[in-house]
């Protein structure tokens, strides 16, 4: 069940992501509307549009739906579709984490003759033939969030794990003053997202930084806590925590707290639980610092808009990069949602009211 859930909520970014939304809109809704500069072309190549007047049917093959990031993503897509109900109808199918089922789902959407298919792929390889079939049928295909092999799809958009890693690596290096012993946490074993982030981060860590252990913790808080408890026993000195997901960072910090160890700088993403933990603990832990890069859950909206543009005769870039938000100890109050559950990913266009309803 879990195999793809987390790998597919992972995603990421682009250097120099701005805090435009937060600054403009204040603390309640960091991103009420998606700014035009939050999505940038990754290459010059353009995807060719077609012109389909009248009401459209857009299919979304969601590889999995069992975690809060996916839930928020889907909710935002539904709100976007509801606001544009006169132009198109959104049809959602759920792959339940199963590679084969997702291929069948896409085949079904092709058989229903939808106008466009959006995909978050469980496997970037397995969906290739199905997307090629859609292409031959004249259907616009927009994989997003997780990359798909080859180029038999109309347009792709997502964030860039390597660039996220570069930021996280550089920031962790800075927070540690270029020296110290660290431990690290990856997501599910062998997933390409974690590999990409680490590939970006590694060269940015200075020669004075020693990685004691880099472990797979499946993006699960409890798993990271259990592993960290072992690492704390084995290593008397741990100066920092590298992590590509903040659930693992906060799990590891909870283990440090339980062991009575002084807390250390961490990296991660926009998981509300870490922001709340940081807020509660920072006064007593001067060395607790964080540098985070978000995983925008509004990607689905951008994908929908790209598909509609492509169906309205407007060419769009074939590959686009989503810009994430950077969160740290100086600006986290703008993003933290103290009254909402830890599981919320805060880089979202959903208002606190909408999130409260969703998480109830």
């Amino acid at each position, binding site marked *: 069940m879990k195999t793809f859930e987390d790998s597919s909520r992972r995603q990421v970014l682009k250097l120099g992501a701005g805090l435009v939304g937060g600054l403009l809109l204040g603390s309640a809704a960091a991103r009420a509307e998606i700014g035009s500069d939050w999505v940038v072309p990754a290459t010059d190549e353009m995807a060719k549009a077609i012109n389909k007047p009248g009401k459209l049917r857009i299919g979304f093959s969601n590889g999995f739906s069992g975690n809060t990031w*996916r839930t928020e993503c889907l909710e935002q897509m539904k709100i976007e579709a509801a606001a544009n109900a006169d132009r198109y109808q959104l049809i959602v199918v759920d792959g339940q984490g199963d590679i084969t089922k997702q291929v069948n789902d896409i085949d079904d959407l092709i058989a229903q003759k939808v106008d466009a298919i959006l995909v978050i792929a469980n496997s970037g390889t397995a969906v290739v033939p199905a997307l090629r079939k859609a292409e031959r049928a004249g259907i616009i295909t927009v994989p997003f969030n997780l990359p798909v092999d080859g180029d038999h799809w109309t347009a792709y958009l997502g964030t860039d794990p390597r660039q996220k890693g570069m930021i996280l690596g550089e920031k962790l290096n800075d927070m540690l003053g270029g020296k110290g012993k660290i431990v690290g946490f990856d997501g599910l074993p062998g997933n390409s997202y974690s590999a990409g982030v680490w590939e970006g981060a590694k060269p940015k860590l200075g020669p004075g930084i020693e990685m004691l252990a880099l472990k797979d913790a499946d993006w699960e808080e*409890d798993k990271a806590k259990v592993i960290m408890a072992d690492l704390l026993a084995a290593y008397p000195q741990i100066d920092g925590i590298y992590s590509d997901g903040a659930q693992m960072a906060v799990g590891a910090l909870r283990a440090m707290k339980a062991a009575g160890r002084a807390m250390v700088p961490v990296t991660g993403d926009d998981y509300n639980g870490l922001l709340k933990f940081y807020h509660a603990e920072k006064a007593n832990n001067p060395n607790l610092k964080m540098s985070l890069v978000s995983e925008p859950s509004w990607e689905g909206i951008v994908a929908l808009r790209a598909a509609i543009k492509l169906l309205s005769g407007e060419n769009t870039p074939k590959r686009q990069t989503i810009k994430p938000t950077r969160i740290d100890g100086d600006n986290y109050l703008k993003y933290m949602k103290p009254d909402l559950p830890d599981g919320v990913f805060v880089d979202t266009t959903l208002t606190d009211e909408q999130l409260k309803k969703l998480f109830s």
Partner: protein
Amino acid sequence: MKFPILSLGRRYPIWAAVLLLYAVTALVSPAMLSPGQILNIVRVTAFLGMVATGQTIVLLTGGIDLSVAGIVTLTNILSTGMMLGANENIAVAVLACVAAATVVGLANGVLVAYFRIAPIIATLAMNSILFGVALVSTGGAPHGAAAPAFNTIAQGDILGFPASGVCWLGVSVAVAIVMKNTIFGRWIYAVGANARAAALMGVPVRIVVVAAYALSALLAMCGGLLVTAYIGNPSLGIGNPFMMTSVVAVVVGGTALSGGVGSVVTTIAGALFITELNSFTNIAQVSTGAQFVIQGVLIAASVVVYRLLGRQSRT
């Protein structure tokens, strides 16, 4: 001349393995010898140990309970969703979990005993249902949190000993005593050894099977409560690892998958062994892939070892 470790190894191979692995781990990282780390392992083993104790009862009847993963997840979602971080809600949340686990366990047992559905299928289907219920009821966005007082059962200590370990060992020993010294315990073994013969001797086979699955569900729920208290948050993926590891802990402990042979006490050692192994691989820079391979090899090896020992004791 007899070496104590050899005789221990012959009689209780899993306890010898626990000590051996511990020694090896300590060689790699002497810090593992610290009392703090030993207590940490006990604290963490409690989650798996609790689930595996229930799994033992079902395996002894010749069945298997794959729904434990779903029960742990559902317990986590239900308890945090009802507690909402407030101590006054603990009682009602725990009662709701007990009620849910009882229903699930009875349903498993009835499916297996009365509808004659193969246990692996019945409980796998149940697992899928439970995960689906957790997903639908939360809409994929679970809310709530465990209450501070509740969290002490996994994060706190009783006289310097992890509270979760006290719960687990207390429950396991109680179940072991029941299995060894009561008629019900003997019925479980009899059903697992030969259900038809047991029925001819007047054992209420169906009721025994239903009771076994009910106990397994309740113990899985206890494990779910402990792991929830350890982390304090809802997570839809929290139960997943328990499906396999609970079976592995029991089998490595020497309980036969075919039923009728084994004990709850050796499952305590089995759970400790699996947790120690994870701890060892965490510290020894072993990759997750290698961790899976090691676990697989040990399962296969343990079955071979028990078979050889069994043959030896007969001759």
